[in-house]
């Protein structure tokens, strides 16, 4: 079987190269010691250092050798620990988004199935699955230090342009990297290279330092030579190391290609994928800025002019089809999967379906723990009316807005528009739009959420003045998106709860009818925090009290309603419509 032999060859070659690499690292240290020894020796003899016996100098040389090797090892360990942060870190770096395992999107479902199949074929655990939505090139990568915390990621382009078999080939290739521990290997190699790079940096520092001191005295001469030795030997070592590393990386790619054929038993899968990369203009290009840093992880070279980490497509294809000439391979046909043009009518139906669900969700929100709610007549079960009312509100929202809040980008804009006052939605829509948009945004990664909150904060602070309404909105967004909860929540004493309630009541009395009301945001949010940690009966009393306060003037404004909603949110209690 041809692919087993290919794997054997690639593995043997890597083993040799890794030995060569380690030898060259040690040799760099040895040569450096030797050169420095000569320099120092001649310097001391020139100084009349006849008291130096041969024994002494060899001991000193040994210590020097240990110091140099120690420096390399320390730098290596530092770099490895900073790189071994796991696959999720790399995925976030490149802007990839996680794919949910239960997915109704047929393309993604196919992708998930393929990953599961390959994990069976290779005998690895199923990794976390990611996708790069904005990349149109065909590419993929796997990352992670240990076999059980790996991630696998493909571009949207790969899913759309490759047939099922080809995508399977690509995923199998990535599984081979996981299976053979290539990420670990390449992180280690990068670490050692960094160790050698540090030597040149030490040399540079020494040259600079002695350059300054030599003006004052002649003692600096020796140090200059030592510095030059560090710089030159370290540089040569680094250069050789990089060469060896790039050929190791190439061998691993061949190995992964051969393993992909083993896992799928279908050379046309991975072969077709490579051919398509060769034929398409966009090829395997990756747009994300940070792609260059991790180019060794990818399936195809992410940059057009990057031959350091990947063998050329020609060589890879020749190995996959050993009986064919390059001319023949080049002329092989590739077919692209037919893509359905989305049917607007159908899409509309789907959107409506989603909205019916949302209506139900909003209506249900009122049922649980209903004894806390103010609208005592609405307490209890979800009534038909409740659902209908919610549905009516949602239906009355124009399609254009609905479409927007279903996408994360649109939802972000909508949420921010609440802050800069650009939103002029009808009062009855406000909450529904706000709620659905926040629901959409819960898919965002933590970093993206933080960024959005930061932007909102900036808008709030723009006019140097925090109005009660701004405060409430900001607080809801923060609470909903971050959903923080401590491991251990300290019980709140009765006095604390009491005083917190007073703060909130004062805020409700003063702030909700007067936009210029002066208050301390920190105090109010602390009070909310306090009460949210108290017992259910205290929460109930507090909520009833606040509702009474809001109701004092027999009329509930939008802001008042939002305030009560905020309090419910803080208490983790649903609020009826």
């Amino acid at each position, binding site marked *: 079987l041809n692919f087993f032999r290919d794997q054997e060859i690639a593995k043997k070659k890597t083993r040799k190269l890794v030995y060569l690499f380690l030898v060259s690292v040690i040799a760099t240290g040895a040569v450096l010691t030797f050169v420095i020894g000569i320099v120092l020796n001649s310097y001391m003899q020139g100084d009349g250092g006849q008291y130096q016996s041969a024994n002494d100098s060899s001991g000193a040389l040994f210590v020097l050798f240990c110091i140099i090797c120690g420096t390399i090892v320390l730098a290596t360990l530092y770099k490895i620990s900073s790189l071994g942060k796991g696959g999720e870190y790399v995925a976030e770096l490149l802007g990839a988004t996680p794919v949910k395992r239960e997915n109704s999107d*047929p393309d993604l479902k196919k992708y998930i*199935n393929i990953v599961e199949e390959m994990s069976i074929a290779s005998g690895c655990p199923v990794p976390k699955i990611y996708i790069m939505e904005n990349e149109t090139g065909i590419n993929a990568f796997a990352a992670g230090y240990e076999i059980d915390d790996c991630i696998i990621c493909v571009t949207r382009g790969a899913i759309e342009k490759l047939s099922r078999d080809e995508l399977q080939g690509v995923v199998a290739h990535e599984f081979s990297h996981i299976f053979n521990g290539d990420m670990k290997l390449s992180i280690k190699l990068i670490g050692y290279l960094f160790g050698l790079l540090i030597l040149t940096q030490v040399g540079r520092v020494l040259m600079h330092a002695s350059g300054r001191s030599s003006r004052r005295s002649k003692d600096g001469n020796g140090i200059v030579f030592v510095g030059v030795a560090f710089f030159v030997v370290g540089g040569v070592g680094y250069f050789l190391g990089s060469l060896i590393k790039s050929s190791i990386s190439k061998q691993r790619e061949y190995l992964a290609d051969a393993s992909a054929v083993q896992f799928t038993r279908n050379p046309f899968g991975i072969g077709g994928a490579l051919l398509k990369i060769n034929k398409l203009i966009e090829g395997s290009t990756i747009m994300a800025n940070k792609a260059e840093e991790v180019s060794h992880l990818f399936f195809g070279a992410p940059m057009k002019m990057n031959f350091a980490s990947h063998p050329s497509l020609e060589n890879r294809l020749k190995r996959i089809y050993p009986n064919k000439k390059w001319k023949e391979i080049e002329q092989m046909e590739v077919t692209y999967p037919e893509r359905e043009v989305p049917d607007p009518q159908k899409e509309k139906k789907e959107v409506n379906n989603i909205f019916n669900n949302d209506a139900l969700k909003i209506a249900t929100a009122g049922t649980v723990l209903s004894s806390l709610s103010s609208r005592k007549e609405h307490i209890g079960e979800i009534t038909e009316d409740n659902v209908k009312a919610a549905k009516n509100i949602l239906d009355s929202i124009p399609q254009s807005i609905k479409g927007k809040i279903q996408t994360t980008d649109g939802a972000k804009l909508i949420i921010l528009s609440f802050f800069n006052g650009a939103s002029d939605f009808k009062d009855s829509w406000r909450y529904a739009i706000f709620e659905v948009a926040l629901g959409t945004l819960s898919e965002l990664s933590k970093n993206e959420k933080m960024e959005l909150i930061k932007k909102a904060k900036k808008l709030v602070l723009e006019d140097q003045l925090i109005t009660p309404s701004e405060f409430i909105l900001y607080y809801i967004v923060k609470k909903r998106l971050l959903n923080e909860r401590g491991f251990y929540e300290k019980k709140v004493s009765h006095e604390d709860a009491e005083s917190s309630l007073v703060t909130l009541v004062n805020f409700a009395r003063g702030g909700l009818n007067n936009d210029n009301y002066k208050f301390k945001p920190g105090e109010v949010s602390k009070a909310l925090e306090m009460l949210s940690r108290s017992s259910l009966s205290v929460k109930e009393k507090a909520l009833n009290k606040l509702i009474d306060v809001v109701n004092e003037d027999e009329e509930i404004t939008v802001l008042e309603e939002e305030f009560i909603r905020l309090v419910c949110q803080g208490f983790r209690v649903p609020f009826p419509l």
Partner: protein
Amino acid sequence: MFALSEAYPDLKADGNIQTLMEELTSTENKIGFARQSYNDSVMRYNILCEEFPSAIIAGMFQFKQATLFEIENQVERETVKVSFD
């Protein structure tokens, strides 16, 4: 199943049928890959048992050759039929 969808082109375009076909393909693949992965491991193990230097250990502790997973039963070999009766 596939013949059925060939005969009715409209079926092919339907989302549910597509999902079903995808699931069927994937399930069949998974079974096949599991068998393949097992057999590959058996082969590797057997080779290690015969090859130097691991053969010494294998001989010392009398490791036996493992057998491949094969299906003799003709019925089990056939692909699963799906009908919508």
